[in-house]
């Protein structure tokens, strides 16, 4: 299906915003001012954008430890995200969650997750709720290649099928789980090969190509919305940075990232396609680039300047009533 110009610009804006967000975090982390673990999504933008472009507020996503891209694509406030990553009171989670726990349930973002594989059951639950409440919503579980080997994920695939849930499993195969190659850790060629055994269609798509992801996701989500059950999409690409910030990545081939960044960057490919097809002008994209940069500049400055949560916050938000 052909996207409208608005949609094309929106998609590009999402991807560029994520890229800018992550590139900035890479720099900011190096200053030592960001606490804890930070896992960057740079290089993988087409997945979050391609999938979430199909979703509205009633739809939910369950994310991973590498969740910034999903969050932005699902509509989380970028300022509040940045503040959260700096641990500030103005953060999306009041500074209590950090990068690994960014969530905004009102936006249908059920949370990044520090436990690999934990998102899939949660997405099944959201899909069940949508089904029972009859609100037409779907749920998407983002799972890494590493996370696809977690028992929780396998069980969820089966559960989603036997309960016929409006759920889509997006396996983001970026080639590595930490320092381990997915070629080794997954005992078949493609994770998508496993989908059949769980009674659902599974496809492999080129994660450098927004349009490929967008199309596959559209079909899977349509299927889910129509009550035809779950699907799996395996998105293949690479991450541009280490597993977490600080990772020297000696487990990778010397020029692996450089080559991919140079030849297969999802933003470059997108820009080339839409300008070559004369759907969008280069200047329009450049304007978005500028706006994204300004947005992240501002978010970073505000996050840095924001106050820490007050000491009393330590003890709040554990229970609603106790």
């Amino acid at each position: 299906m052909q996207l409208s110009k608005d949609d094309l610009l929106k998609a590009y804006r999402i991807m560029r915003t994520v890229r800018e967000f992550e590139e900035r975090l890479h720099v900011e982390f190096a200053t030592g001012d960001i606490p804890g673990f930070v896992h960057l999504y740079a290089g993988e933008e087409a997945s979050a954008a391609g999938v979430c472009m199909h979703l509205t507020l009633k739809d939910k996503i369950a994310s991973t430890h590498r969740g910034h891209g999903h969050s932005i694509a699902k509509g989380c406030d970028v300022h509040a995200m940045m503040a959260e990553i700096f641990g500030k009171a103005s953060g999306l989670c009041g500074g209590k969650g950090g990068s690994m726990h960014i969530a905004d349930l009102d936006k249908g973002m059920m949370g990044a997750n520090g436990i690999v594989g934990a998102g899939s059951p949660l997405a099944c639950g959201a899909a069940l709720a949508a089904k029972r409440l009859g609100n037409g919503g779907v749920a998407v579980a983002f799972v890494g290649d590493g996370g696809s080997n977690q028992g929780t994920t396998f069980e969820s695939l089966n559960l989603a099928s036997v309960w016929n849930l409006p759920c889509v499993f997006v396996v983001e195969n970026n080639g590595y789980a930490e320092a381990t190659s997915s070629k080794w850790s997954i005992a078949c060629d493609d994770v998508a090969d496993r989908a059949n055994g769980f009674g659902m269609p599974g496809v492999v798509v080129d994660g450098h190509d927004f349009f490929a992801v967008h199309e596959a996701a559209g079909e899977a989500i349509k299927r889910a919305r129509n009550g035809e059950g779950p699907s799996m999409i395996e998105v293949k690409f690479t991450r541009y940075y280490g597993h977490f910030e600080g990772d020297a990545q000696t487990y990778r081939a010397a020029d692996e990232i450089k080559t991919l960044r140079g030849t297969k960057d999802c933003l470059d490919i997108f820009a080339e396609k839409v300008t070559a097809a004369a759907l969008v002008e280069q200047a329009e994209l450049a304007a978005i680039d500028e706006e994204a940069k300004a947005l992240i500049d501002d978010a970073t400055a505000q996050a840095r300047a924001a106050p820490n949560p007050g000491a009393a916050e330590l003890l709040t938000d554990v229970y609603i009533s106790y």
Partner: protein
Amino acid sequence: MARKITFQQAVNEALAQEMERDETVVLMGEDIAGGTGGEGEMDAWGGPLGITKGLYSKFGDRVMDTPISESAFVGAAVGAATAGLRPVVELMFIDFMGVCFDQMFNQAAKFRYMFGGKAETPVVVRTMFGAGLRAAAQHSQCLYPVFTHIPGLKVVVPATPYDVKGLLIQSIRDNDPVIFCEHKMLYTLEGEVPEEPYTIPFGEANITREGGDVTIVTLGRMVHIANEAATNLAKDGIECEVIDLRTTSPMDQDSILESVESTGRLVVLDEATPRCNIATDISALVCQEAFDALKAPIRMVTAPHVPVPFNDTLEDLYIPDAAKVETAVRAVMEHRQ
């Protein structure tokens, strides 16, 4: 008063009444209906002990059988709870938490805090615990101390048909994640239970017997052991105050402390194994907060630090009994400072 029903019927009734009241209440678990996909009867089981039997027939697909995939379906209950349902999920035996604990303690328990107060996760995990059924080491544990340890969880351990109904309804209406622990040896216990729905608030202990000499704090099936011991001791003129905690998290510290302030003597009775359990928790609380009132050492009566044995003689020795409680009470009574 009133109609007598069993603990098990009270559980079933609470579920039925809440499902009638609130469309968003759904049940899930292994064979909680039973018969799914087969050619025989549907609603064939109601769980292995028949506790939920009949609910499928009443509520149809709001009562969902599951594959044997606890982390997926407990997690699904948790996820659904953040998305508008009020799932009551059955973990058949508490001992099975080892395959799905993450979804309870890292997900459900922590969402609200990690998300800065913006999450509500009204999920109830009903689960069967305790020794006595000759079910051996992997089907007889207590484990509520583990749940009690975890901030963000509420933990309920009812002792009577009346309480199980009121506490289960409260659990379903509660907006925090609740682990609801049903002792398998209590299911056939009869008691007076009002027909209409009612709630019992969390964190309010039940003083099942008043007495001025020794406080016995306990929970679950052990409440009945404590009452039995207290009855026996009363014949010798020793008056025990028996406190049934009802919930371990939140816990009614005030009732415990008040009682010990007046008796000066405490025995804690806990079916769980002895390390880092509820008995130690309460002993520590009292020793910190009511030390000056204590006239004697606190004594703990618990299971030993061993897995639950299969053989019935051994299992009976494993489970704390009235005789052990009486010995402990007499010991604290005899203590001279």
